[in-house]
């Protein structure tokens, strides 16, 4: 159980700056996801908390105490990585016991057995306890790795892309399992990933990291519905938010490339944007809909079939935009269609800075 705070962290590797002025506040018992592309600084952040790296500037606090002088062992955090790093010749039980059997301060045998059994039950790997780890599937191995972290009862779990090496079905299952585990343990989790679906589905809070800076921190709902800038808007959501260049003319959105027009509502107008100001209009695919009398004509460029729904790529001139439509919508490639958007859901971004007008003020 721990509260983690990173204050104004900068980390340089030689001339390369990995993190710049990073502030993070992870509450006790929170599932916090750090989301970013490769090289954004996610793993560096994790290693700073674990005590495997020292910040160039700034401080790391665990439960309010500056841990600058604490070694990795004293910080009492558990790291789970994408690679499993299990002992192949040991059984699952021996692997789970291993962290509890250091040369000094060894736990009593009864306590070790109790912790291992409990972890195995939590992770549903009891039936595997006597098996050698090289006989396990990827998902089972990752469960054992997590089990090795659990038995120690650490203050914090730090997880570095633990699901990335698994196939899609298994990832889907383990997502829920991990979330379930965190709720059961009531532990603080910091989970690092490049996969926005993992971030959205598991995080109590998500921090979006780009080029060593935190762009936005919020609940999945906030990040999805009210992205701070076009980077977050296009990174979170699958398919991503449509972003179309245009300007405001007489309270309507006029798109630059093809001059097509769409209506806006009070909320968007009240954002303070002046007529003629270059903007980027953001709209989620589920807020674009087909309708025979709708204002804009497009061609169906592509149909992605998800069974439960279809994701259409619509083409207006050279502009492409996505629309999520019900599975029963019957459309063919190159068919002309008409579309509109839900004007309440439009997000306006400044063309120059990419920052949402809702966040600018």
């Amino acid at each position, binding site marked *: 159980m721990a509260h983690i705070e990173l204050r104004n962290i900068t980390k340089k590797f030689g001339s390369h700056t990995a993190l710049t002025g990073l502030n993070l506040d992870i509450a006790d018992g929170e599932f916090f996801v750090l989301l970013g592309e490769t090289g954004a600084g996610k793993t560096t952040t994790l290693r700073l908390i674990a005590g495997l790296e020292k910040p160039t500037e700034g401080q790391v606090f665990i439960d309010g105490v500056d841990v600058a002088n604490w070694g990795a062992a004293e910080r009492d955090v558990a790291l789970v990585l994408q690679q499993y790093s299990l002992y192949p010749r040991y059984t699952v039980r021996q692997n789970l016991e291993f962290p509890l059997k250091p040369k000094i301060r060894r736990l009593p045998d009864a306590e070790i057995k109790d912790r291992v059994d409990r972890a195995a039950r939590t992770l549903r790997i009891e039936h595997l306890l006597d098996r050698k780890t090289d006989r396990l599937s990827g998902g089972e191995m990752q469960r054992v790795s997590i089990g090795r972290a659990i038995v120690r009862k650490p203050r914090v779990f730090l997880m570095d892309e633990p699901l990335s090496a698994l196939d*899609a*079905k298994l990832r*889907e299952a383990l*997502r*829920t399992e991990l*979330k*379930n585990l965190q*709720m059961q343990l009531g532990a603080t989790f910091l989970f690092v990933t490049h996969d926005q*679906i993992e971030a*959205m*589905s*598991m995080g109590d809070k998500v921090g979006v990291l780009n080029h060593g800076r935190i762009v936005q921190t919020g609940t*999945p*709902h906030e990040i*999805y519905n009210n992205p701070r800038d076009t980077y977050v808007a296009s990174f*979170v*959501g*699958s398919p991503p938010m449509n972003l179309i260049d245009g300007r405001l003319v007489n309270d309507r959105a006029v798109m630059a490339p093809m001059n097509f027009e769409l209506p806006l509502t009070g909320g968007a107008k009240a954002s303070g944007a002046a007529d003629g100001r270059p903007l980027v209009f953001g709209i*989620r*695919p*589920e807020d674009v809909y087909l309708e025979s009398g709708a204002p804009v004509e497009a061609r169906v*460029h*592509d*149909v*992605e*079939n*998800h*069974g*439960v729904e279809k994701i259409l*790529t619509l083409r207006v001139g050279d502009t492409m935009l996505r629309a*999520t439509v019900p*599975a029963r919508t019957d459309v063919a*490639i*190159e068919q002309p269609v008409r579309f509109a958007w839900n004007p309440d859901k439009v997000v306006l971004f400044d063309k120059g800075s990419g920052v949402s007008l809702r966040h600018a003020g």
Partner: protein
Amino acid sequence: MTQIELRGIEKFFGAVQVIHNLNLAIADNEFIVLLGQSGCGKTTTLRAIAGLETIDQGDILIDGKAVQHLKAADRDIAMVFQSFSLYPHMTVFENIAFPLRATRMGSGEVDKSVREVARVLRITDLLDKKPSALSGGDMQRVAIGRALVRRPKAMLMDEPIGALDAKLREEMRAEIKRLHVKQGSTTIYVTHDQIEAMSLADRIVIMHEGFIQQVGTPDEVYSHPANLFVAQFVGSPVMNIAEASVADQAGATSVTVGGASTGFEFPHELLSKLNGHAGGGLTLGVRPEGVLVRRDAAPGYMPVEAHIIEPLGSFDVVDLKVGSKVLRARTKAGYVSGPGEKVHARIDPEQAHFFDTASGKSLGVRL
């Protein structure tokens, strides 16, 4: 005009049988996707059609003519692989022209054919470049161009976009589909990615352990899976599966899962349609969108408790505790506020599937 037919194909690697009595008729111009996990026999099937692999039993017919004894080169079929296999020392133009050089085509005609294919694939400006200067997507366009230029009878593609990153894969998938719509040619495409299969195919052939599990349009395999394997392989989030017991209850049929104290209400005719399976060995399948959730009580809905909620942007996936089982439901974003909330759920009878537990086969019940 190319029809391909596979009749009673069997294939062994040593003692291991990798294809079992495979029968499939592919119509002219059809886009067929072979879908399955690695090791299911999909690539072996494709390679057998191409002539890169022999078969131990059965017939491969192209336009009614058995070709299993013909060499690959004599089958007039083009193949595109995941690895691009371009000649690094040749320009894009020469790479595409290569298959035509072996024929007696005049250079004027070669030039015309290459430029036509390049135009379709939008790589005209790359014709003078070497492959090393190209992006992954462009390399695969060139590889497709090289396959297309001969105007083969059929195009066979083995995970052609599997090595590309997600964004490029989407783009290339759209292009392959558009190309097929525009050019039209009998196409057989192998993938393990169900979204690719659902988006590209006229018909999907789902394979598992060397057996065809189901052949059908994307809508058929999604809405009417033939067995539990197909039901769980296609669709994300995955279909809920639970052993179920059925009871006759005051004019309706009640379907209980996870030993819950109450069952889900179904129309009375379910009992007769189950045709003797009501006694036991019955598995219920329902996709998350077929589990309907409301905040208030309503006729036909039973009270359940929400557990983990996965927000996925435009919608949430909510775990509902039903007895000892968890059923996952798809709801509007934010509809259920958090774990522990009491809500009401029912199963949409039209979206329910019933399987024989032992064989895994669908009972074909439609309500």
